[in-house]
């Protein structure tokens, strides 16, 4: 069976790549994409954890949590993308650094 440490390594590195994407990219779309990556990283960990749980009966909590994260991702992307559309209509660009009107 696959030792759990590998799964940790995988999800962790995926998470960090997603994080780098969020921080580095200035285009809102790319930020949303890297956000998706981070979500996937977490989900892998959930599934692995429930899989390696030593309870006698089969433990399906991980998959139920996967369901929840899935709905979360879906709704989050829906709102995110409508914001992207909205922003594009208003500013004709997607550079997030230019959006600092909230400051003053």
């Amino acid at each position, binding site marked *: 069976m696959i030792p759990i440490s590998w799964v940790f390594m995988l999800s962790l590195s995926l998470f960090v790549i997603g994080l780098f994407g969020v921080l580095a990219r200035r285009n809102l779309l790319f930020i*949303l994409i890297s956000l998706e990556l981070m979500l*996937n990283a977490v989900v892998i960990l959930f599934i692995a954890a429930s899989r390696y749980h030593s309870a006698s009966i089969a433990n399906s909590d991980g998959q139920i949590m996967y369901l929840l994260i899935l709905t979360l991702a879906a709704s989050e992307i829906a709102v995110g993308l409508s914001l992207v559309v909205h922003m594009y209509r208003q500013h004709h660009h997607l550079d997030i650094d230019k959006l600092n009107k909230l400051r003053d």
Partner: protein
Amino acid sequence: MLDNMLNTIFIITAAIILISALLTITAHNVVHALLYLVITMLAVSLIFFILGASFAAALQIIIYAGAIMVLFIFVTMMLHQGEKSLAQERHLFHFSTSITALFLSSMLFFELIFMLFLTPTDSANSRVTAPSSAIITVKDIGTQLYGPYSLLVVISALMLLSALITAIHISKSPVTSEIKTKADNL
């Protein structure tokens, strides 16, 4: 025999995931990024299969890769950014601006690695033993879902509804007309 085959498959898919993830975030063209993302999603569903969560894998392919990524592509097509966005992208994202991001994420990466593997795990709760081999069928998930986790279903339904409403509201409001008038007389 079966185990080391599983291991190799796991390693290959993990490698695919990481490479395509890297490619998604470094791609200049949005569509390329999206396609790499779809590849990542499929590889992840393969991981689920390896881990025995077949229902999750199926969902991953259908909803995640199928629905959400398609939505993504729709939106990028709608924005029809064209050539100038590529050039813009090139100047928006290049090595010098992302140096701090790189530094921060790598710091976080090493700290997590260090914390997970190098710190002396106290023996009490590290009894990670071999995974139980019982197969989890969809029926089990169904009974669990409508048994103890019924509340979860309600919440996710509510969340989806609220997302729906906000998405409609934001994209519907005729904001573009006012901005234009203001932009003209600036």
